């Protein structure tokens, strides 16, 4: 594993840094950019760093925020129909939380709420002007989290940050094939006695690359031309097919 080698050399570099010990929290990613290429099936990014002895580590990953609609189905004349919707604003398109031990053991409720550690502490609020009671909003909020978890875009409850010795830590962050594109914030928290004592934010960019990126860009920026090309390609393919199989 070359990642292990990277980690090891970085650890040595950190330990060799002048004034090591005065910087209580250092963390970095093995990559700061994820490229969604044609063969993309999801990827892992290694997060590693060092903290003061006897500290805990929590990592919160947030994708770009978006407006999300949650629909509830109801029965109408025997079939299931979308009959109620609640729009949530500023929902992280991707969210993951990692820690070196179960969150409730290492972080107080106040800390978890303040820093959004755990899906239940995400500030998911219905859109301004939504006519929805607090109880109903809660049900829709849970449904939103449940659906996001099912599609792999909310990864919670992973207490699998591993410590190497007392200070070096690392964890593998998984990004599935359907990972949304955009700018990600990866917050690394160092905790002592249930409270955050240090924090560091590292950026990560997820973007489409290669042919797929070109197709997507073209489809969204030159929509009409894209349509004409799509039709032209199909006509050409049809003519070629007819020509190839003509003799038979």
């Amino acid at each position: 594993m070359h990642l292990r080698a990277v980690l090891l050399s970085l650890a040595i570099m950190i330990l060799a840094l002048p004034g090591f010990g005065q910087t209580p929290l250092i963390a970095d990613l093995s990559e700061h950019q994820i490229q969604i290429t044609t063969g993309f099936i999801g990827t892992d990014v290694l997060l590693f760093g060092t903290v003061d002895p006897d500290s805990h580590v929590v990592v919160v990953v947030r994708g770009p925020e978006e407006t999300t609609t949650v629909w509830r189905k109801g029965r109408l004349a025997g079939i299931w129909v979308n009959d109620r919707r609640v729009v949530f604003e500023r929902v992280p398109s991707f969210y993951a939380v990692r820690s070196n031990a179960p969150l409730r053991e290492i972080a107080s409720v106040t800390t978890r709420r303040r820093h959004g550690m755990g899906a239940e502490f995400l500030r998911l609020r219905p859109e301004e002007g939504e006519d929805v009671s607090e109880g109903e909003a809660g049900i829709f909020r849970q449904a939103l989290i449940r659906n996001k978890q099912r599609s792999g875009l909310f990864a919670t409850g992973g207490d699998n940050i591993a410590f190497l010795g007392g200070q070096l830590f690392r964890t593998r962050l998984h990004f599935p094939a359907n990972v949304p594109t955009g700018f990600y914030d990866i917050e690394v928290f160092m905790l002592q006695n249930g409270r955050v004592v240090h924090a560091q934010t590292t950026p990560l960019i997820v973007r489409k690359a290669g042919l797929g990126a070109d197709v997507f860009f073209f489809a969204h920026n030159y929509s009409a031309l894209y349509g004409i090309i799509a039709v032209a390609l199909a006509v050409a393919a049809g003519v070629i097919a007819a020509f190839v199989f003509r003799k038979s």
Partner: protein
Amino acid sequence: MNIYLPIAEISVNIFLLLGMGGAVGFLSGLFGVGGGFLMTPLLIFIGVTPAVAVATEANQIVASSVSGVLAHWRRGNVDFKMGFVLLIGGTMGSVFGVWLFTVLRSLGQLDLVISLCYVVFLGIVGALMFLESSRALFRRRRQTDIRRKLHQHHWLHGLPLKMRFRRSKLYISALLPILIGFLVGVLAAIMGVSGGFIMVPAMIYLLGMPTSVVVGTSLFQIIFVTATVTFLQSAQNQTVDVILALILLTGGVIGAQIGTRAGMRLRGEQLRILLALMVLGVAGKLCFDLVATPDDLFAIGAEGAY
């Protein structure tokens, strides 16, 4: 080997897609149908959003119709005049259909309407085809060959704006084919089908066209209707996935050639019964999904659409 589809935004095994294209192509070659009514639900089953499935399938149908119409053209089985008249209605229908599609998507009811259209149309067509072909199968021995009139005239043919269609040997009101074209155009936009399963019976039974020119003429106008749908869906909704369409049609053209050959070895009525059962099967599955209680009553809406 997985491939990331840029517009559908999912990662799918390329051989699964080629296989689907091949299988549907085989069936369309076997039965002489477009296959859109099978492919669109299949795409939805593997996780492509209905919006992308419908628009991409329209793109694929352009290709299969072009290759199909060239074969019919060589045999002179295309009534171009009728094709153009159908096309007037078809273009208007597809413009209206894409508009309706956008509105339904914003209301959150697109998936429901697509499923309902499938259940209703496939149910009706499948049931009629099953009855007709099983009756034909039982009567085969009797050979009651009564010479019928060239075609039946009814009041719809007598509407204003009468036109002569030489190849179809018809002198009827142009309003009727325009109306049929319009309805099929709407279906093409909403369901991602060529509409052949509506168009062909309508041409035979409503217009009274001779069977020989029906398929070629239908294919001819389908090219333009699905091309219009592809263009409008691209321009308005950005839901056409060219990469997905190209993979599907690669499998599709090969499957269709094998299917056509296999079809020559089977009897017509048997083929139609098989097709009818398949159509009913798809309708039944979609109907079940509408009625059965979903695992989760809550779902997240398509991004941006709410």
